[in-house]
């Protein structure tokens, strides 16, 4: 752990705030015009998800937290727990489902992604922005609905429904945006 000045804070850093590890989700510097410099921040407690807003003086000292980043490969799911493996050491890791924030529905076996670890606990994940998945169920487009509904729902291999253009057929590979859940293109 190292002490840094608040004017070095950046979005994406991890700091201790009120003894809790927090991710800096927003950090803006401002000068009240007739005053000295301040850092207006929004921080998210990585354990509880609570969000704090706090304004630091730019020369306040803040404790930055060492976060370990490890690339892991997905193995399987058991209830709310997801199992991953370090592809180099073959060590296995348990990851609680909640850190995926709903994106776990796009997890495919052997998918690799980076995890943030704090004191041995997974606190965040950089989920791939796009995933390539196979369309497992798709109905043929019927002629009648081409005018008002140029899209149709299909089921992808992870069991999630995605709206795709009418030309997409069963068995094809498509790319899906994991942020929005929208179809991007054919793979």
């Amino acid at each position, binding site marked *: 752990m190292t002490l840094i000045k608040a004017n070095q804070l950046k979005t994406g850093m991890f700091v201790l705030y009120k003894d809790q590890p927090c991710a800096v989700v927003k950090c803006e510097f401002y000068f*009240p015009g*007739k005053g*000295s410099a301040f850092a*207006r921040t929004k921080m998210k407690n990585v354990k509880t998800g609570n969000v704090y*807003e706090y304004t630091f003086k730019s020369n*306040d000292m803040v404790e930055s937290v060492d976060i370990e980043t490890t690339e892991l490969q997905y193995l399987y799911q058991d209830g709310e727990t997801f199992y991953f493996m370090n592809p180099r050491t073959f060590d296995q890791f348990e990851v609680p489902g909640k850190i995926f924030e709903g994106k776990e529905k796009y997890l495919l076996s052997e998918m690799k992604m980076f995890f943030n670890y704090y004191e041995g606990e997974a606190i965040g994940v950089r989920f791939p922005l796009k995933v390539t998945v196979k369309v497992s169920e798709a109905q043929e487009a019927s002629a009648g609905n081409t005018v008002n509904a140029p899209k149709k729902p299909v089921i992808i291999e992870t069991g999630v429904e995605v709206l795709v253009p009418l030309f997409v057929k069963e068995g094809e590979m498509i790319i899906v945006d994991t942020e929005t859940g929208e179809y991007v293109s054919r793979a």
Partner: protein
Amino acid sequence: MREQVIDAIRAYFKGRGFHEVEVPLLLPTPSTEPFLEVFKTELKDDQGNRWEAFLPSSPEFALKKLLSAGSGSIFTITKSFRNGEGQSSRHNPEFTILEWYHTPGDYMTVAEDFEGLMRFVFKSLNPARSDLAGSSRNSLQGLTLGYQGKKYGLKSPWERIRVVEAFQKYAGIDTETMLDEQKLIGVGKKKGYQVSEQTTWEEIWNQIMANEIEPKLGTKGPTILYDYPITQAALAKKAKDPRFAQRWEVFMAGLELGNCFSELTDPIEQEARCKADLAERKCLGKTEFPMDSDFIEALKMGMPETGGIAVGVDRLVALFADVPDIADTLFFPVGEMFPQEL
């Protein structure tokens, strides 16, 4: 939206006898605010003469020279520049500023102007239509503006609160404590703010403002926070209680929309404050420049009693357009033209 807001602002002031004036963007010396960094450039002629030149951080001095020359009430919508601030959702280094000066008048005259202006712009953007009722985020009848999922009433009179009342109400700090350096720093320390030997009254005061007071202001409609400590208002007249200055700021939806003074008209006092500001600039390692002696001379000719205000037009546009970031109101935001290196 930007075009409509600016058209409405012009129409409002022209309908009330204000003259629109232009101010120079290339100056031999900018205004003296100690904490604002400026853009410095150089003017050359064909004889090889060179002059230092600056981009203005506000049009204030130029406008006051016009007022002293007898212009009457004036307004300008112009560009101003602030350097070295980093990028944020509320600032762009080059920004559009509206300043108006109401003479004869004072800071409370301008408060009424601002209330009228906001209503006028709102009505111009929401012409009375029956289909507006119900579904729309804006309600004309209640003068209710929707912004980022919340509603704000623009009806007059807006909430007005003195700075000392706000400190008492929201931070539990009384006037004596607020104005005393040692007492305020002591309270700040108890509240858990970091205090070192270099910590100043001004830093703790602003930190309490930012953390405990500003978030409580302007949550249902604009709030005018007025009568600032005299040290927080370099260009304002003193209030009845000489420890305070006739200055207000207006807050809404977490944005500071405007900063208003009863303008200081005393050239001797003004010169002293400018000199103190320039000395502070030197201490802070900001770009140094000479004092604008023309400005002081102009005040000696006699500046009329005037209330003046600076309003960030980009923020107003963001508010009326219901976007969270002023970059969304600009065709060419600075962050896109000067991308940060990754």
